[in-house]
């Protein structure tokens, strides 16, 4: 026998308008086991909550049903009332008669009838509810940040400053990410290196940050509060503890490869640091380019190294770090525009992509900041092409969001550094950020020509073989334009890192259609993921500019902190359990679980559940043929009882 209390909310007129609330309470009082049934104007108000609390005491209630708005609104509110009154919070049932009854009908009779049916279902289910205990686990206080771009750097510093130990894992040999490649940042035009390199240095110096460059995550075990993450340290062939960064090795090295840092515009050595301000400022050997690895002899670097830091025998090593939370900030790649043959990238030397141009502007870049074409001459006319592969069903549907602004920045820098005519070919200018519209106005006044029309083709000029012709319709005049230029700059789509899928798999993240990591909720949980304890920041979530990336990084750091700041963590109690007496050892549960929570106990011959991994979806319970798996709070009996109650009226 249960003692159930039913509390019907009017929600002002929101419910009372189309449900006869007092009739509903009257009806409830006739149902078996209901010892008290009341209606009240606003059940979520303080007096409403107090009424419930009083009745729990007065009537010795052991189950409470609140007939009000959606459980997604106020379940937590009323659970607290139960808890405060000494009743297990899982003995609460919410009947949703607002969103799913009163708001979707105008008919008082219909509304009341449906509310009665729902309430009846809730009463039948309520009797079978069991008190549940939230699981409490210890929390590891450390955090891992994956990705050493501006997002990862920012998040790591924020967390480290609170005293947390942070592992910053970066796959390249230096941190800095794409931002370190830029010369200036829009719209303020402040120097990228000037604002970034101090942060990079702080990372290196910070006593709470363990910087792990040339590292990749190879396995993730565990769960929120207790992740065990295996990290592969790729062989660098240089002992960074011994190396004193004299860089004699890089001078002598005969091996060459294209510089990733300079977007392939120049070559670098086989033993190299990517750029002068790299952090850590220690070289690594590129196995593919190294003469010794290719031909079996050379070892020049070894000969000149006074520290004896070169070690050709070095192997990849694996280590495990234990953390309580993870921030994924893996950033982006630019799409390969060679696939879009109409723009001639890779075919005509005068066609550049945006990152290459960033390097051309950069004083530490291949041309020391001079804007010159590949043949060393200065361009006289430059066309900047927007939306290359973005907003395009043939390649990437999303807007890459920052291209409009960096294209404007490019125009400004071209004007500043050359005497060229600069043309922008655009569809729309999207300048929705602080100071962005003002920046757009400024660029217009700098006499940059804006042509509204997407470029259809870049071709070689027939009359002047060194030049290119850009063909487009100016959609404002309807005229077809053939514009001779010397340089074409493409603004390619920003896409997830090529290994984003692996990262998603490792951390159990969902990805959207374009492959960006999915947030838990687009508005209310933009930095959380479906993986508890794993947060995302920066462009790996979707294209965004530096201010937004930094804001996200700070946010993600704060979110991670909310987990690791606690010693203990309470997890939802609605997990599953196995009744070993009924388990038929079919192992279906083990096969289907997306989280690997069930496992087969071979000696006992039954499945068991690692409750820390269980998210409570109940999939295993429905594939269990012998009904041995009990999905707490949604047990077979509870669901069936609710169905019976619902179908009775």
């Amino acid at each position, binding site marked *: 026998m249960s003692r159930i209390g039913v509390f019907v909310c009017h929600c002002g007129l929101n419910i009372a308008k189309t449900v006869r609330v007092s009739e509903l309470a009257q009806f409830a009082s006739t149902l078996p086991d209901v010892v008290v049934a009341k209606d009240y104007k606003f059940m979520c108000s303080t007096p409403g909550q107090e009424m419930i609390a009083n009745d729990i005491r007065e009537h010795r209630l052991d189950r409470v049903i609140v007939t009000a708005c959606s459980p997604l609104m106020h379940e937590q509110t009323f659970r607290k009332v139960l808890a405060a009154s000494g009743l297990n919070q899982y003995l609460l049932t919410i009947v949703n008669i607002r969103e799913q009854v009163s708001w979707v009908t105008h008919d008082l009779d219909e509304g009341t009838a449906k509310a009665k049916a729902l309430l009846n279902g809730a009463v039948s289910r309520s009797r079978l509810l069991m008190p549940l205990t939230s699981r409490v686990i210890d929390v590891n206080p450390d955090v891992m940040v994956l990705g050493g771009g501006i997002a990862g750097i920012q998040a790591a510093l924020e967390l480290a400053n609170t005293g947390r130990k942070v592992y910053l894992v970066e796959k390249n040999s230096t941190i800095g990410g794409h931002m370190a490649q830029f010369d200036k940042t829009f719209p303020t035009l402040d120097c990228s290196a000037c604002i970034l390199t101090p942060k990079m240095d702080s990372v290196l110096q910070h006593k709470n940050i363990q910087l792990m460059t040339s590292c990749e995550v190879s396995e993730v075990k565990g769960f929120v509060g207790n992740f065990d993450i295996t990290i592969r340290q790729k062989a660098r062939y240089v002992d960074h503890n011994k190396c004193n960064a004299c860089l004699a090795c890089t001078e002598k090295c005969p091996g060459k490869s294209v510089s990733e840092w300079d977007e392939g515009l120049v070559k670098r050595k086989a033993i190299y640091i990517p750029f002068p301000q790299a952090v850590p400022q220690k070289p690594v050997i590129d196995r593919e380019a190294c003469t010794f690895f290719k031909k079996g002899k050379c070892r020049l670097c070894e000969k000149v190294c006074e520290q004896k830091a070169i070690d050709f025998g070095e192997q990849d090593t694996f280590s495990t770090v234990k953390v309580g939370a993870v921030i994924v900030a893996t950033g982006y790649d630019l799409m390969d525009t060679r696939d879009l043959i109409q723009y001639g990238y890779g075919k005509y030397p005068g066609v550049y992509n945006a990152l290459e141009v960033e390097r051309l502007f950069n004083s530490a870049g291949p041309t020391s900041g001079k804007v010159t074409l590949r043949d060393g001459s200065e361009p006289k006319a430059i066309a900047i092409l927007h939306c290359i592969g973005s907003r395009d069903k043939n390649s990437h549907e999303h807007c890459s969001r920052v291209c409009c602004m960096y294209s404007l920045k490019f125009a400004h820098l071209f004007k500043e550094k050359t005497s060229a005519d600069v043309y922008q070919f655009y569809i729309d200018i999207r300048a929705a950020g602080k100071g962005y519209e003002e920046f757009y106005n400024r660029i217009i006044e700098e006499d940059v020509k804006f042509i509204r029309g997407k470029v259809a083709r870049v071709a070689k000029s027939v009359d002047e073989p060194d030049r290119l012709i850009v063909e487009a319709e100016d959609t404002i005049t309807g005229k077809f334009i053939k514009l001779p230029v010397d340089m074409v700059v493409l603004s390619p789509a920003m896409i997830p890192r090529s290994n984003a899928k692996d990262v998603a798999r490792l951390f159990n993240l969902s990805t959207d259609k374009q492959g960006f990591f999915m947030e838990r909720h687009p508005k209310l949980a933009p930095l959380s993921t479906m993986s508890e304890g794993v947060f995302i920041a920066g462009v790996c979530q979707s294209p965004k500019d530096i201010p937004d990336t930094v804001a996200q990084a700070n946010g993600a750091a704060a979110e991670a902190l909310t987990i690791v700041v606690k010693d203990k963590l309470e997890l939802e109690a609605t997990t599953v359990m196995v009744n070993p007496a*009924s388990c*038929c*050892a*079919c*192992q*279906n549960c083990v*096969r*289907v679980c997306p989280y690997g929570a069930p496992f*087969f106990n*071979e000696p006992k*011959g039954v499945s068991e559940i690692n409750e820390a991994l269980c998210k409570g979806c109940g999939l295993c319970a429905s*594939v269990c*043929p*012998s*009904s041995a798996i009990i999905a707490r709070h949604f*047990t*077979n*009996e509870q669901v*069936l009882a609710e169905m019976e109650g619902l179908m009775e009226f």
Partner: protein
Amino acid sequence: MAVSFQQIEEKLKTEARRLLESGEVSLVLAWGKGYDEKHPMPYVAKCPSDADGIVFNEYCTHNPARYLVRYPRGTKIAVAVKAADSRAVVQLIQEDKVKRRDLVILGIPVYGIKNPKTGELIDGKTTCGLYNPVLYDVLIGEEVHGQPVSSPYAVLAEYEAMDRDARFAFWKKELDRCIRCYACRKACPMCYCDPCFIDQRKPRWGEKSPEPAGNLMYHLTRFHHLAGRCIDCGECSRACPVDIPLYLFHKKVAKDCEEMFGQAAGMSIEDKPVLVNFRMEDSDKILE
């Protein structure tokens, strides 16, 4: 060429004796003498001398794979199987109920098995209609070729074409007759749950006593539990004392599963049971 049951029996005995003598297996599952010639029984040989008790004749319909799950995991077992029986073994391996390495499969290609109750030849109408085992270690006899091959689903055409109300009436009449003796699930090599869902008290999925609603719940759920797993040996129907043609429903579900998921039960140990599996490219069409 006609199958010589006598020869198969001899070979089975020899093989069983050898396996037990060498200690390769600790038991051999096959058929033994029943109360008369027409009713051989499932049989377990546990020592070399037991091998003499093995029988093989045209009435050996039972599916010895049924008994594999009775023994502790890791027991080395030799199991004699006809074609459909071998699919049960494959399916049990897929489901990790037995390990391939623990089994010696004695495959018997055979044609001409008869239903002891009716004397009718057992073919694709009531079973999967295969003659040769799909998996074996030792082949007992020679592969059967040249016998008529029929689709195991051809028999369904008549029922699929039925008017829906008539089909409901047909099944209602059949299932209402069920006396809930559970011979079907006893005979089924894939029904290894203990307890069966219908015997549970929490929740009580349906009435235990024979009455229409409980019967419907028991059988429909059982059809679902066997979806993509039933290997169409037809034993459930032969075991049924009131002759409910359960095999028809199982065949229908097997056909649907094969059409929707492109995989038949018990054909390859590499497969994963279809209902605990998915493909991203599964189509919503299957829900229409």
